[in-house]
């Protein structure tokens, strides 16, 4: 880095001063692959050094612009929220919007309009389906971000580390806990059975997509903990995982979009209300997303691959 100070603007110098150093990009960030970096003993070629330097400056200027944009966006969002708070009604008034007729209608007409005897299910999956769709998207995005940060495969990990992981896995496979395996073989089928029962019965009894999906995810986690990830890859590898995750969210989006576009009471004409109408397939979709999220978190944080 030959005299980078002259090229810096005032803002970048100020942010570097705030950060406590003048050059903030360490070498590891420039070469995440590890293969591109020259060996420590070898002197790097001039071309390579120059391109790396240029890359570092580009990244640095991008980062400083990023900070500025983040501050601007944050101030705008805070201003909007403050203005909204000003427009809220006073606390505790009897004619506030929270005390209107909507909640009463949910309870009185919920069963005949949504087809779900369980009022909570009818509320969260039918009247407020967009809200639940947002929650599913949050789960999907969360597990995607964890994948970005923690996934280890041959594209972003050094071969040495991969070999080390494989050795540890083999050592774990040779010394699995027998007690855990025996008990798991007894209770895992019942966990899956109860999870599916809760999933499919969400419109009739307490339960639904979120609780049933978490039971399914817990069963998957127990299976991996007892038998190792090589066993589960026979029926649940990364490809199946991604297909299930994406299909769950897509199923929800398509069904609920169809429901909204046909006037929000169209689908019960095709799926009779006596079996729950729209609630049952949406429950299944939410359950898929939740189960994949739980299992994905476990797999990423323990091993870094599916």
């Amino acid at each position, binding site marked *: 880095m030959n005299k980078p100070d002259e090229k810096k603007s005032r803002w970048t110098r100020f942010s570097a001063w705030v950060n406590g150093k003048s050059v903030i990009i360490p070498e590891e960030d420039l070469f995440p692959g590890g293969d591109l970096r020259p060996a420590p003993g070898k002197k790097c070629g001039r071309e390579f050094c120059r391109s790396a330097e240029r890359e570092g400056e580009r990244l640095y200027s991008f980062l400083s612009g990023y900070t500025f944009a983040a501050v601007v966006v944050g101030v705008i969002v805070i201003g909007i929220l403050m203005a909204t708070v000003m427009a809220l009604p006073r606390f505790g008034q009897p004619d506030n919007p929270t005390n209107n007729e909507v909640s009463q209608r949910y309870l009185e007409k919920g069963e005949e309009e949504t087809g779900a005897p369980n009022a909570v299910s009818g509320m969260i999956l039918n009247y407020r389906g967009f809200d639940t769709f947002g929650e599913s998207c949050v789960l999907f995005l969360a597990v995607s971000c964890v994948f970005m940060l923690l996934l280890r495969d041959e594209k972003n990990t050094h071969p040495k580390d991969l070999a080390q992981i494989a050795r540890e896995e083999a050592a774990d496979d040779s010394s699995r*806990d027998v007690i855990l395996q025996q008990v798991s073989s007894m*209770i895992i089928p019942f966990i899956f059975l109860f999870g599916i029962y809760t999933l499919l019965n969400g419109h009739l009894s307490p339960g639904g997509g979120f609780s049933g999906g978490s039971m399914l995810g817990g069963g998957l986690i127990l299976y991996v903990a007892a038998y190792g990830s090589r066993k589960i890859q026979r029926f649940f590898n990364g490809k199946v995982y991604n297909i299930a995750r994406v299909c769950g969210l897509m199923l929800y989006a398509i069904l609920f979009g169809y429901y909204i576009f046909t006037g929000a009471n169209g689908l019960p004409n095709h799926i009779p209300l006596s079996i729950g109408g729209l609630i049952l397939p949406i429950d299944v979709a939410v359950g898929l997303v939740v189960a994949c999220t739980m299992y994905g978190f476990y797999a990423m944080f323990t091993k870094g691959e599916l």
Partner: protein
Amino acid sequence: MISTIFTVLGLVFILAGVFVFFTSVLGIFRLHYVLNRLHAAAVGDTLGIFCILIGTILMRGWSVISFKTLLILVFMWLVSPVASHLLAEMEYLTHPDIGKKCEVERR
């Protein structure tokens, strides 16, 4: 007459379960080493939950809810000792000098 007997029996069982849970909580707070505390907690998870669930079944009479309670009991008895076993095994594997704390059988 019979229902009175069952109610009294159930009360006795529930009181015994409360006593077991009391000793278990006392042990968790009183003991200091991991394995001792694990032992105290496991007593509450097996004997205490057995006494309380049997007591509720006796007081409630034979119905679907009692059957579900029995299923809960079976599940807890299957799962809780395994969880304790795994915790103890983890302590055995990761504690650097466990030989000083207790007598270990080398595998």
